[in-house]
């Protein structure tokens, strides 16, 4: 049987000389779930952009349903029966679910089809929801429904347009374990109804769980296509990275000592003035990692901002050793041995239009060692930058390279290098490995544990449950701005268990410390 989709020796060279794809072969059979894996920069997104008509390949051919095709744009691809569910949801917030689903192809009536046919719209959307079992309220405004349902709306959008081949770009990044399970059930049911799915991910566990076959990309080349049943995670990861990767982070039991950070009854508002965290209390001791788990948007961002002085607390106290931090300025807090890896390296972690050296210096320029009077000692700074880059394995042409030119993983290493080079007694790490590749994740995890073993207190906030479970000694779950559980990270603690707390289904009586 010929494959449904066949991409042959795809090459893509961007005008600036970057080679994104160098001879990728990718073939998908009808009715399968095909996982596409690879590190950042391996060429996954370029390949999908080419498939979807957003980029033209430099060389190579695509055939779909046995016909040679070259799409001029998304609209063209959609017309041929392809659909893409983007990683970042593409919903208009004030429109209803139903309006979002039919957007761009509304049923119309009246003179010149000038008017919307609401009855037909309702009927067709209800029909889709029924046929595919993707439950969501069609009349709800898109900004009021939870993340899992937003994703269903995205899937309904492509189904409405008659997609047979559905591409999902890292669909589980924002989901809880329960929502992920529901998504997988939906995907299986889609396949049963004759759809084909391309599943882009870097979570190998999910590859094993859901896919029939898996194609691995590395350095712009397709390395292998494997039948999932006949392989295992270690093999896939070795193919992805090109070397053996340690899956379990090696770490010894924590030996916690004195309390470094103690937060009591902390409350803060979000940007709209709505309470984002309420009555949050916990402590972090020297030599331990406290992980904050939770579905994104449950107050993690505000908690970290309040502790690091970026947001005003409404009430409560934040103690660092014997020092009250609440309502001190960011500069005052930074003057202590407190490191902060912000959740978004693009906007708050680094200055993209400055050099790597300047970025590494951002927290040190007041340090007398780098100054003569009011002037900076450029040579000293360059030396410092060079050694930091070496220590933290930042791969760039030189320390004078613009930060904005770095890949996600390298830029994150710059941020980590800056925050760790001050030898923090307290490290607040927010999403420290978001969107970075496996190699860099492994490295950053090792560095964080190294700090813990050296006696630092670490507050780790992550939306990635596996990261929380791999690194933390204790885990606090934040739900709706409150800590609903505080657990020791023992081997018998499961993701399912945490998921119940994250969704607010279970609540533990948290003894105030």
């Amino acid at each position, binding site marked *: 049987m010929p494959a449904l989709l066949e991409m042959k020796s795809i090459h893509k060279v961007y005008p600036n000389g970057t080679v994104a794809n160098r001879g990728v072969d990718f073939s998908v059979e009808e009715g399968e779930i095909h996982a596409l894996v690879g590190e950042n920069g391996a060429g996954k997104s370029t390949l999908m952009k080419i498939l979807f008509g957003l980029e033209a390949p430099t060389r190579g051919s695509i055939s779909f349903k046995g016909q040679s095709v070259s799409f001029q744009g998304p609209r063209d691809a959609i017309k041929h029966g392809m659909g893409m569910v983007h990683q970042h949801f593409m919903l*208009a917030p*004030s*429109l209803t679910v139903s309006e979002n689903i039919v957007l761009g192809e509304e049923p119309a009536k009246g003179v010149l089809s000038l008017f919307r046919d609401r009855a037909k719209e309702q009927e067709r959307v209800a029909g889709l929801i029924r046929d595919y079992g993707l439950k969501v309220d069609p009349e709800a405004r898109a900004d009021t429904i939870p993340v899992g349902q937003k994703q269903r709306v995205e899937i309904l959008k492509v189904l409405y347009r008659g997609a047979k081949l559905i591409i999902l770009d890292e669909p589980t990044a924002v989901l809880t374990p329960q929502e992920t399970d529901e998504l997988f059930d939906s995907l299986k049911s889609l396949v049963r109804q004759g759809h084909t799915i391309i599943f882009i991910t870097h979570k190998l566990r999910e590859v094993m769980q859901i896919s029939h076959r898996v194609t691995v990309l590395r350095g712009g080349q397709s390395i292998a296509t494997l039948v999932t049943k006949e392989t295992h995670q270690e093999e896939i990861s070795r193919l992805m990275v090109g070397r053996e990767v340690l899956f379990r982070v090696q770490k010894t039991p924590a030996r916690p000592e004195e309390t470094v950070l103690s937060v009591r009854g902390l409350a803060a508002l979000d940007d709209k003035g709505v309470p984002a965290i309420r009555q949050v209390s916990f402590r972090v001791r020297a030599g331990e990692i406290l992980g904050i788990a939770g579905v994104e948007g449950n107050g993690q961002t505000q908690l970290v901002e309040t502790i690091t002085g970026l947001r005003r607390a409404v009430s409560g106290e934040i103690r660092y050793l014997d020092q009250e931090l609440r309502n001190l300025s960011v500069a005052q807090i930074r003057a202590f041995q407190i490191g902060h890896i912000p959740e978004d390296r693009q906007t708050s972690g680094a200055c993209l239009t400055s050099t790597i050296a300047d970025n590494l210096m951002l927290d040190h320029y007041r340090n007398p060692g780098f100054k003569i009077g009011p002037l900076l000692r450029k040579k000293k700074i360059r030396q410092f930058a060079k050694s930091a880059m070496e220590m933290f394995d930042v791969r760039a042409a030189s320390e004078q390279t613009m930060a904005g030119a770095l890949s996600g993983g390298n830029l994150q290493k710059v941020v980590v290098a800056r925050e760790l080079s001050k030898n923090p007694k307290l490290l607040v790490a927010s999403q420290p490995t978001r969107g970075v590749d496996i190699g860099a994740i492994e490295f950053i995890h090792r560095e964080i544990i190294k700090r813990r073993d050296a006696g630092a207190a670490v507050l780790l906030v992550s939306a990635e449950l596996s990261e929380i479970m791999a690194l933390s000694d204790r885990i606090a779950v934040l739900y709706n701005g409150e800590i609903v559980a505080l657990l020791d990270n023992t081997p018998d603690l499961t993701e399912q268990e945490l998921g119940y707390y994250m969704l607010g289904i279970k609540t533990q009586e948290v003894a105030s410390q």
Partner: protein
Amino acid sequence: MVVWQTIWSQIMDLTLIVVLLRFMTPILLTALGGLISDIGGVINIGLEGLMLLSAFTSIAVASGTDSWLLGVLAGVAASVLICYGMGFFAIRLKVDIIIAGFAVNIFGSGFTIFLMSKIYGLTGNYNPTGAPKIPLVDIPFVQDVPVLGKLLSGHSLMEWIAFLSVVFCIVLIYRTPYGVHLRAVGEAPQAARSLGIPVERVQYSALAWSGVFAGLAGAFLSNGLTNMFVKDMTAGTGFLALAVVLLGNRNPAGILIGSLIFGLASALTTIVQTIPGSPVPSQFIQMIPYVVTIAALVFFALRKKRRLEIAA
């Protein structure tokens, strides 16, 4: 006391309402235009300049061709043309839409004065004799009914158009696919683009709509409300309309209510000003629309804050 008596008597004999309708028309029309541009994510703050350009073009063409209709059409055309120019800079060349709007305001004021001086050799105002005005609509029979006659009959055609425009905008925004596209483009341009909606074209059209409505309002200023062009005759009407857009809660009905409030303030100003021997200094009276603007902004800010506190 004279003041209150006069206002009361004007309320009783419905003059206040007639004046109110006249004054709210340019605000309402312009604000509807601003609304559409705002919904499309390209808020047009050049409304004031567009009104001036249309006002001048409209009376110049009307007196030249002896046709009010051609005058209005020319005014609207001039205004839409400038909007496409704005779109070229803001959408194509990615100039900040606010800056483009400012430019249009400055351009509108300066260019009309320039044209007046070049074409007619006048500096302050252009006051052609016998230029045809937008007609009044007298409704037969109804005009002879005591109260109803004054309420419904004898208004300028443009006042009717303004009210019909509210209905038109409601239908356009909520009942047509175009309206849904407009909202999607304003809120989530990436989403709209990914579904094949031509984002730029929709934004051009949103600006063009703001040009149409500001053009109608401008034509009404010079060809209906008065019968001349005075330099900077809009006197902030475009900015009042912009305030209405911001207060109007993003829907045409809200715009109508906002325009009513501002129209009322302007009407009161005029009535009090024309009272002979009024004890209130005229400067105070002229403050009314602006005081109302500030009061309305404060009111809405407080209401929003309270709503947030309730939510919390």
